[in-house]
């Protein structure tokens, strides 16, 4: 999995490329923690290139969302591929976290 980061206005866009599973989820957890610890608690997870997410990945997303909320911000998801979106829907994550089909609409919601 590759993680790229870009700051747009006050939002940190974290783009995921590849599989988020038990082997890679700890890297994502560290990355989100580092972003939150430096005071950036508005995170947009761009999942357009994420092609798989397991339970370990879902847990890391939830931990990240909790950290953002505790810091007064929010973790938002966007652009899930069909298979990952289905996993997120079945596991109830899309009713707990904010989700947008496009990056533009997700960023617009942050302003």
């Amino acid at each position, binding site marked *: 999995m590759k993680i790229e980061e870009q700051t747009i206005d006050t939002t940190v866009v974290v783009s995921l490329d590849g599989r988020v*599973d*038990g*082997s890679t989820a*700890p890297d994502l957890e560290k990355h989100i923690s580092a972003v939150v610890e430096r005071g950036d608690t508005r995170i947009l997870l761009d999942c357009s290139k994420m092609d*798989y*997410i*397991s*339970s*370990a990945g*879902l*847990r890391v997303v*939830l*931990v990240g*969302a*909790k950290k953002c*909320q505790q810091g007064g911000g929010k973790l938002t998801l966007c652009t899930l591929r069909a298979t990952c979106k289905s*996993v997120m829907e*079945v*596991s*109830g*994550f899309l*009713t*707990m*976290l904010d989700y947008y089909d496009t990056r533009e609409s997700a960023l617009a919601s942050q302003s």
Partner: protein
Amino acid sequence: MLTFAEEILLLMLDDDGVFLPIRGGAVEYILAGAVLMDLAFANRIDNDLEQLTCLDAAPTGNPILDQALAHIANTDETKDTRGWIETLAGQETTEIRQQALASLIEHGILESQDKKFLWVFRARRYPTIDGRIEREVRLRIADVLLSDDIPDPRDVAMICLVDACGFLRDIFSAREIERAAPRVEQFRKMDLIGHEVGGVIAEIERSVMMAMAISPH
């Protein structure tokens, strides 16, 4: 920190140290799920909707978890989460229960008492010596379910186990249960192991009810 099996065993005991009845009488499935949750949170296993896999066969240092981990790591057959819950429930839960109880006694949380009843029969009870941990678990569950905050994944998993046991009624008033119901419903889906444990127990309950309905007596 206690394991999921230890925490749920604490909640299974009443004030006299006697085990409370579990939904469907399926304590072995609850304990099997608890062990899988601990292995998942220790980053030893991972799962999705289709399969459960071993990520790292290195022992955790906890004999209960390591026995189950060795079993998963040494099996060539691919199984989903429910398959592993059923396998562990069928083979290892007596040991899981005994070792978890022994650990709780060693931590000074429970004690073991043998009592006779009707002058002949012996019954073992596990009264609580230190009730702080049990109270802390109950408070944590109540806090999470009665707020709108994003939950910690560990709390989500624990709530799935408590819900599968049918113990939420012991923690909440009827009004609180009604208020917490949408969150419980949501959490049931969020932990894939917890979701499967709840599913197995609901199936057992349905089977028992059907058997009772068609029984002539």
